[in-house]
């Protein structure tokens, strides 16, 4: 290890959270979303940095999940939903006509509130995406990728002897990690998580949080959560949404110790605004 590298590590190790300084992987400009005539998001402009965790917080109905679903065009599946404005991932406009939503969603994976494994074996759950995207050329490569993904999701040791058993037979926390393994198998760059721990007990939650922290080295993660403590624990950046508007965003540490906007303060301290 070079001297400069050691010195750099010493310099950065004192910081509470090291935030890599890189250009944003996702950039949104003036994003409006309508459900029929109802405006759900109003001029959302946000830069999301790479290899970090950003949490989206706010009261129910504030638009945080709607925003999350814009980032891999999940809202396309809702007929009455209309998205305006500019959303770019690595500079590419993801709403451009030439964009293939299937490959976009492989690039921008998603983990949902309730674990939703396919009614297939544990192995097939992870192998499925690899197959449909044609990402492996041989059986042994497929098996390797499944194993690697399950290891990275922290599930391998618990399931290695029963890969043929149905994924739905696992516990809730294991199912959620299986869904994460399924998501990371296709090597996305970005992972969207919509309240991934709300159906899990504290131990399963802690495992997912630990996993999120490990995963940020390789992925950019955006997580919607109703747990302030979870947002504070897992993310380096936090964005607060309120009534369809992005009220405040910044370093998580700053948002939770000294937010600038009164609405943020009221929400995170549990006050009537």
């Amino acid at each position, binding site marked *: 290890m070079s001297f400069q590298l050691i010195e750099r590590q010493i310099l950065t190790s004192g910081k509470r959270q090291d935030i890599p300084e890189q250009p944003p992987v996702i950039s949104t400009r003036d994003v409006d979303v309508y459900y029929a005539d109802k405006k759900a998001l109003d001029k959302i402009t946000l830069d999301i940095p790479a290899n970090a965790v950003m949490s989206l917080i706010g009261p129910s109905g504030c638009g945080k999940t709607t925003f999350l679903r814009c980032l891999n065009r999940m809202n396309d599946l809702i007929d009455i939903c209309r998205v305006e404005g500019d959303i770019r991932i690595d500079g590419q406009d993801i709403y451009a006509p030439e964009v293939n939503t299937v490959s976009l969603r492989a690039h921008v994976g998603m983990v949902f509130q309730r674990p939703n494994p396919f009614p297939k074996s544990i192995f097939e759950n992870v192998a499925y995406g690899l197959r449909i995207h044609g990402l492996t050329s041989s059986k042994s490569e497929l098996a390797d990728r499944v194993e690697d993904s399950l290891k990275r999701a922290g599930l391998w040791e618990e399931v290695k002897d029963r890969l043929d058993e149905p994924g739905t037979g696992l516990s809730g926390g294991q199912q959620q990690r299986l869904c994460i393994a399924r998501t990371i198998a296709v090597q996305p760059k970005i992972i969207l998580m919509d309240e991934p721990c709300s159906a899990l007990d504290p131990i399963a939650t802690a495992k997912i949080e630990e996993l999120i922290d490990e995963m940020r080295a390789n992925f950019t993660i955006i997580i919607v959560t109703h747990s*302030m*403590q979870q947002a*504070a624990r897992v993310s380096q950046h936090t964005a607060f949404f309120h009534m369809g508007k992005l009220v405040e965003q910044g370093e998580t540490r*700053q948002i*939770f*110790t*000294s*937010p600038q906007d*009164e609405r*943020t*303060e*009221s929400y*995170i*301290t*549990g*006050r*009537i*605004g």
Partner: protein
Amino acid sequence: MDSTHIVSSFDRDLNQIQSLLLEMGGLVETQIADATLALVRRDTELAAKVRKQEKRVNALEVEINELTVSMLALRHPMAEDLRRVVATLKVSASLERMGDYAKNMAKRTSVLAKVKPVGSSTNTVKIMSKMVQEMFRDVLDAFVARDIETAEEVRLRDAQVDQMHNTLFRELLTYMMEDARKITPCMHLLFIAKNLERAGDHTANIAEQVHYLVTGEIQEDARPKSDKTATMFIKPKKKKKS
């Protein structure tokens, strides 16, 4: 922030730690004033009263510690609430120290009351104590009113207390050199002055907590250090040959 919490017992807890802190502050304020008065009047009864009050101050600190720790564990305070809890915890520690200083002043007063007063030093101590008491009152008001301007002004006023301490240090050392019989009272006065100087430092610490409470920033710029007694050297005068 004036609006109330959705969980009203959270507000009750926050109000409770504030009133405990203010009760503690009031007690310490009286302790310092009484300890000084006891010294000036050579009043050992009043000094004994100051010493007794220490127990109540300590009990209040324990109560505040328990309540703030349970709030951190159970309520997970955020933003201004978090800063209030943390600042209260730190201010109560400063108040407890200041209570100890007042008690120590009172102890020494019991000895000083038995010996002849040393020059005008007691009066200088009295002036120094008045400065500390005024700073202390102002900083407690600033804490309640969230007034960072007053807090900053108090923080800077600590330099005057330090200068006063420097003067007393020099003065008392000179007395001791002149007359060995004065060493005992001078040493006690010196420790009393040191107690007041430390009380001034804690007042400045509280001022920094007011700044943190309001802005969320930890004051990094060092306050002016004016206590020079640690490096002070006074050369004894040569005795005249008789």
